């Protein structure tokens, strides 16, 4: 089913681009094959053309999936509006990510060059056509439920509708002080502030995504501003995460090796009275006096903390950093549980399996590492990238073709993206890991399969960091699929129920439909049925977030 009127030609033009006509780059295929079938390129999302080239290369694009639920009724309906929200929401998509921060981040930023807001051409509302069904921005009655992509490019945050064919974003928000570099979304946020944004300057904002979509301007509205002008920490934000079940608390990691915890309903005006860090190499936690925000500072390591990820239950937080170490902490007790070093070089990204048993890390040794929480050590190395690994994620929607759900042989599917422009998919079958037998000095490694299961060596004691293992001591995985998806180095990937999303450093996003998800299925078909929502412009204001 097609939308009527003016949106027709837009749809056909972006459909053409999705099939690869708009300069996909030499040799880039629009599909890739896996044992379970073909993944096809469905949509591409990007920022307005010709935007901000001076800012490119300075900020790496990250993408966050934001599922806006139906707005709760807060007042009797005043007017009924027929809004075509161009997205077919499948509520199952509410839990999109294995453990949350699937795609963590390369965090190189050379500094913060152009902060000049770009006028005029940057917002592409006009390109959406006059069709009321798409005219989502600027309507205060707009409910906006649906699934959105939030991504940063240069000095702006863009919001795109995941399930529309439109390549251009529906909203842009420009920052005059610094470039946004990381963001996080919590679909269950109760007080309306569901989107977190971290800046190159160290500043942090929490806002309501819905309120941003309702606003016509190009500035953040109704934001709570933390670490203003970097008053507590002026180093770059590297990663930001909501604490699962944390009642509105969140953490932000910085390029100087610190991580700060914030709680909602605490004064954001800052009390920078954290003690001086005596030993940069030692982990330490300090709490703020007078219960002000940030409520705690975790000094994690020397050099940048490049990525953080909470386990799905919020009990554990994993961090990776410039020093090459993965660290796993008991968040509540602020204690190191385990961790270890990369083969060499910095680690750039990390992600949890949904069940909290495994952690993936990727980094400057071109390897994808699989860590076991049970053994508290590396259990496998994935070899296949030709450059640094910038994003890793478990596919929590994937079911092994013949899994009966009771078998001992648990299979995990995960993906990784790298600066080699490739996305790799991997299967982790614990029973079938090839386990190198510890070799006698000078001998050549022999291999045995099976029998030893995942316990190729004993588990490591609690609270210790493991040194780099030797190449021959770690079982190796080979990728199931290697697919070159962009012409630029990649910065992240996400799994949704229907698709895999890849994003490159320069801000181009591709959405690859899983096999079986009929690619012809127009998700827009729902749009005119999501009708007559009696809703009220219950402005998310009143939460006090006046800028």
């Amino acid at each position, binding site marked *: 089913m097609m939308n009527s009127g003016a949106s027709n030609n837009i749809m056909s033009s972006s459909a053409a681009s999705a099939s690869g006509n708009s300069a996909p780059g030499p040799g880039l295929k629009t599909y890739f094959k896996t044992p379970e079938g073909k993944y096809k390129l469905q949509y591409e999302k990007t920022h307005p053309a010709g935007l901000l080239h001076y800012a490119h290369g300075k900020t790496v694009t990250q993408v966050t999936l934001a599922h806006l639920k139906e707005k709760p009724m807060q007042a009797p309906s005043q007017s009924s509006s027929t809004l075509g929200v161009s997205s077919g929401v499948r509520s199952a998509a509410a839990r999109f990510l294995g453990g949350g921060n699937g795609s963590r981040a390369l965090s190189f930023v050379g500094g913060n060059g152009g902060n000049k807001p770009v006028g005029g051409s940057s917002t592409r509302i006009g390109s959406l056509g006059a069709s009321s069904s798409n005219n989502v921005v600027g309507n205060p009655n707009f409910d906006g439920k649906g699934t959105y992509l939030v991504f940063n490019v240069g000095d702006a945050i863009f919001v795109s509708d995941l399930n529309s064919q439109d390549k251009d974003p529906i909203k842009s928000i420009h920052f005059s002080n610094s470039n946004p570099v990381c963001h996080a979304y919590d679909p269950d946020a109760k007080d309306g502030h569901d989107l977190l944004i971290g800046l190159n300057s160290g500043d942090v904002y929490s806002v309501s995504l819905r309120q941003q979509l309702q606003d016509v301007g190009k500035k953040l509205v109704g934001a709570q501003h933390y670490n203003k002008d970097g008053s507590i920490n002026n180093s770059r934000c590297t990663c930001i995460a909501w604490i699962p079940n944390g009642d509105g608390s969140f953490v932000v990691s910085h390029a100087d090796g610190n991580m700060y915890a914030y709680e909602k309903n605490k004064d954001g005006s800052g009390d920078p009275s954290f003690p001086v860090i005596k030993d940069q190499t030692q982990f330490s936690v300090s709490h703020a006096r007078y219960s002000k925000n940030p409520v705690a500072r975790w000094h994690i390591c020397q050099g940048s903390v490049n990525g953080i990820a909470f386990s799905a239950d919020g009990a554990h937080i994993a961090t990776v950093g410039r020093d090459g170490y993965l660290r796993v902490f008991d968040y509540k007790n602020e204690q190191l549980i385990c961790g270890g070093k990369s083969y*060499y070089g910095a680690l750039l990204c990390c992600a949890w399996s949904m069940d909290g048993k495994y952690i993936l890390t990727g980094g400057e040794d071109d390897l994808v590492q699989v860590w076991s929480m049970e053994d508290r050590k590396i259990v496998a190395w994935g070899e296949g990238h*030709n450059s640094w690994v910038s994003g890793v994620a478990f596919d929590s929607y994937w079911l092994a073709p013949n899994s009966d759900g009771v078998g001992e042989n648990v299979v995990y599917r995960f993906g990784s993206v790298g*600066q080699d422009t490739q996305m790799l998919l991997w299967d982790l079958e614990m029973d079938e890991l090839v386990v190198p037998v510890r070799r006698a000095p000078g001998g050549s490694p022999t291999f045995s399969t099976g029998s030893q299961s995942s316990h190729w060596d004993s588990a490591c004691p609690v609270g210790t960091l493991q040194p780099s293992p030797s190449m021959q001591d770690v079982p190796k995985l080979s990728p199931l699929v290697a697919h070159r998806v962009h012409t630029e180095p990649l910065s992240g990937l996400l799994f949704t129920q229907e698709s895999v999303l890849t994003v490159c450093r320069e801000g181009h996003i591709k959405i690859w439909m899983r096999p079986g998800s009929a690619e012809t299925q127009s998700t827009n078909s729902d749009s005119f049925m999501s009708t007559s929502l009696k809703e009220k412009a219950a402005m998310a204001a009143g939460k006090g977030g006046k800028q």
Partner: protein
Amino acid sequence: MVDGVTLTMGVAGSKLEKALGDHFPEGERYFGLENFGNTCYCNSVLQALYFCVPFREQLLEYYSNNKSQGEAEENLLTCLAELFSQINSQKKKTGVIAPKRFVQRLRKENDVFRGYMHQDAHEFLNFLLNQLVDILEKECPKATTENVLNGPGNGHVNGVKQEPAATWIHKNFQGILTNETRCLRCETVTARDETFLDLSLDIEQNSSITSCLKNFSSTETLNAEDKFFCDKCCSLQEAQKRMKIKKSPRILVIHLKRFKYMEQLNRHKKLSYRVVFPLELKLSTTLDAGDSAYSLFSVVVHVGTGPNHGHYVSLVKSHNHWLFFDDENAEMIDESAIQTFFGSAQEYSSNTDHGYILFYESLSGDNKSL
């Protein structure tokens, strides 16, 4: 021009001093080098070598030993030693020095460097190290015997017995490669060891040094017009060839082959490919059980779009700070700025500053060959 430059750079020097403040390393000197007309290829490499601490220390030791022996004949080694000692003994902590005698000597020794044309920094490094080796070997012909005593397990391994004289240049820069060729007819493996002072790697777009090193050691099939003469079969045969690193050097110098000869163009072209290099690296070798770990301490950067023009600068790590040397100029940079020298992911890019020669230092302090 030169005078003016010296003046302004004096100011920049104090800026560097200010930036370092109390962290200015004890006894360290940061001096820019004057450009004598396209001598940036030389200046960038000299800075990298100066901040190669084991090399510098050996050279300064050589200088002090030689000074006491009275007037020696001037050569590249004595000129370099004199230059390093001159920098090292400056009263000021920062400033500019003119490497005049060294450049004059260089131009005398080799006509390639005589003109005022743009030169290749890697060719210069190669020439310089080999000259230093020649001079040292001439001065100390008995170095060979010393080496035999120290070589680990020399007796057991083919081809190492004839290891060349171990000058301190060798001790710092030399590694051993094994060139393995397996005849596909008789399956005989012929292994030949070669020494190297640096590794020249082919590069690919959007790859890493790790990946380039892997490709360097990957198996290559010799066939068609490129067959291998098998001694056993006494004829040309198809064969598989592999280069493995047998012994890793103390200082690993990696040269990225950014200047590629394009046959259809009949000239060299610069490859601006994005090749990422980590601050830490490991090499697995066939001789040692473990892997050798390295830390990046210097990068010679080529600036420009073509092979026959452009500029060279260098990034240098000294006492955990990164410094940027551009001829006379020296300034502090953040470690995270190194990523701007990886190259361009797209062919036409405004960024033309590309890492060209990488210097890694072994982390396993006491190297086996010492």
